[in-house]
């Protein structure tokens, strides 16, 4: 049998093997996505759940003009930047520290992973109780060391940073583990050469570790960025977007449009717009990663 024919047979066989997986993927990923895009073009509400009134892009215009949408978008941008940047700084520091550890590494891993394994709803409820301004343990401890009570969830500025910090507490280990895996996979030779040349720890970090870690850092930032944009549970449980609009993130905004406003068409339009923004960011970062490679 000719080599070309064999390759074609292999290709067909490969396609056959992957077909069920691809079909499942189409069903669970592309169908809901297509449904959302389709629904965003209709006046589909939960009171009249029918695709019988085509409205074109009206729902997109309506979504864009929705009251307080700019507040939700701006709060989301601030939240994403603050949480991802702080998580990266803490996560990278932890990863660098753990990379040198040889004893009790598993113990550190377990401690590090514990918050990540917890359900976000549980995390939010837990912190809600800890941060109760009058009865929570946090203000009790702060009082014992002479710091006055902090109105964690009642003051708009404090509430925003409380949500950011709870998200960091919950998610930082994801960043740390990912970066740690990257550090563990770095080649040893450049470090040995640097040591021979008398490079300091800072020089080694800046000129060897950071450049070699760039692709891993890009992946870690990309993933956390996508997750952070989708943050919902913490706000839903802890603040309901308040006080006022201080913690009103876009995911919760869209959720309210669908389930409180009963307007699935408008919520779908918002979701599709958000998807396009996330997609654009992903493509940009993917290209950046490829350029690094």
């Amino acid at each position: 049998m000719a080599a070309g024919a064999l390759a074609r047979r292999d290709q067909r066989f490969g396609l056959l093997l992957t077909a069920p997986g691809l079909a499942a993927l189409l069903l669970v990923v592309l169908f809901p996505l297509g449904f959302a895009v389709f629904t965003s073009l209709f006046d589909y509400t939960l009171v009249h759940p029918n695709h019988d009134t085509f409205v074109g892009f009206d729902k997109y215009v309506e979504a864009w003009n929705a009251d307080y949408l700019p507040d939700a978008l701006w709060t989301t941008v601030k939240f994403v930047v603050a949480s991802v940047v702080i998580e990266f700084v803490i996560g990278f520091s932890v990863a660098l520290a753990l990379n040198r550890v040889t004893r009790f590494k598993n113990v550190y891993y377990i401690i590090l992973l514990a918050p990540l394994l917890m359900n976000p709803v549980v995390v939010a409820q837990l912190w809600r109780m800890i941060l109760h301004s009058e009865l929570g343990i946090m203000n009790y401890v702060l009082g014992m060391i002479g710091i006055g009570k902090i109105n964690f969830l009642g003051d708009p500025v404090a509430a925003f940073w409380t949500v950011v910090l709870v998200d960091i507490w919950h998610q930082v280990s994801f960043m740390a583990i990912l970066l740690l895996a990257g550090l563990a996979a770095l080649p040893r030779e450049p470090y040995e050469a640097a040591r021979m040349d008398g490079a300091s720890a800072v020089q080694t970090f800046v000129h060897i570790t950071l450049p070699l870690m760039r692709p891993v850092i890009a992946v870690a930032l990309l993933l956390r960025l996508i997750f952070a944009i989708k943050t919902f549970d913490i706000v839903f449980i802890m603040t309901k977007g308040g006080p006022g609009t201080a913690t009103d993130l876009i995911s919760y905004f869209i959720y309210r449009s669908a389930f409180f406003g009963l307007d699935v068409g408008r919520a779908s339009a918002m979701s599709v717009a958000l998807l396009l923004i996330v997609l654009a960011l992903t493509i940009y970062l993917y290209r950046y990663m490829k350029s690094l490679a």
Partner: protein
Amino acid sequence: MKRLLIGVLALVAMMGVARAETLRILMETVPDTEQVKSLLSEFKAATGYDVEIEAISYIDMHTKLVPQLIAPTGAYDIIIVDFYWVAEFTKAGWLLPLDEFAQRDGVDLGRYVPKVMATTGQVDGVTYMLPFYNYVMGLVYRKDLLEDPAEQAAFKEKYGIELGVPKTWDEFKKQMEFFTRDTDGDGQNDFFGTVTQAQRGDCIMMQSSNFLYGNGGRYYDENWNPLLNTPEAVQGLADFADATLKYSAPGSEGFCFDEATAVMTQGKAYSIITFNNLYATINNPETSAAGGKVGITGVPGGGLMGSWGWGIPKSSPNKDGAWAFINWVESFDIAKRRAIMGNAMTQTALFTDVDVVAARPEAPSLEPLVAEANAFPVFTYTVEFVEAVGREFNLAASGQKDPKEAAEAAQEAFADLLRKDGLIE
């Protein structure tokens, strides 16, 4: 192989039969649900039906219910309906009318308190639900403080009036101010005149409504014209913002009823306007520092009417079984046993029933609370109304917006939703 196949098919068929004899209900994780659970074995003995109750927190209920109600055949045979959702559910045609069932089985619908029946019972003369429990809001106050001669003298000296159970809104405002104090001299108030639940959304709307009514305000007139920017409504919102920022525990801007109740049960507040079914929890000496020291009265101006009803979704897999359950659980005997366990009653006769009063001496005082409660706007977009107006109220209560400005924005949001529902032009 053939035997195995037959065996599997038989098992699947048996599971189907077993499924048909199990009634599924979605309920909220509240004491009233536990009371029902404790009696289910009797229903099983009487009818043969198993009942599976899925109890979840309130915040998840609407989201979980709607997809099941839209589906041709849903997962739940019976649901409980908050009054917020009544117009939405009935307008969407998701609930089964119950009049035929009630007439067939001779159920006296007049046994319910009329206002409760109007809230979670009938819509435009059609019975869609049987009222399950009420959550009318009342004023829970520390009677030990009101009876303290030193407090009475100090209050009289400061305001020139007697200290007693508040009969007017102005009297209650003075009491909120009077009891807010710094007891340990560290410069920060640590005992509060009241506790507010000002978290955005449902929590703030429930409690701030009482401040609106207390000032003589209403949400809308007889033609559904919104009244949120009237002087009374603006004053109500200003009073609520004052109560939250000056007379309540720090952090009240983010409290819901659980956190607010916790402040009261820790003995750190003089009063709380709350759901009457929480009174037993606050007055229980085993779980509350205020236990045995509190009383409950109507909010001056009338409290907020709230209630839940039993309904059968049109998507219910077993409608006859669902009705059998509702008819049983709302029968006088079962309702009375639930009332003795602490259920917030909806049937008029229960408030003065000898056995109920023996178990719950406060029962007769709860009847006027329910009878005089004020209605909340119930229309197709009530849930969105709560969100939009609740956001503006929360902005005022957290000091981010002037109450007048927030009231104007709330008025506009309310009017938009009423127009969307076709109630005003």
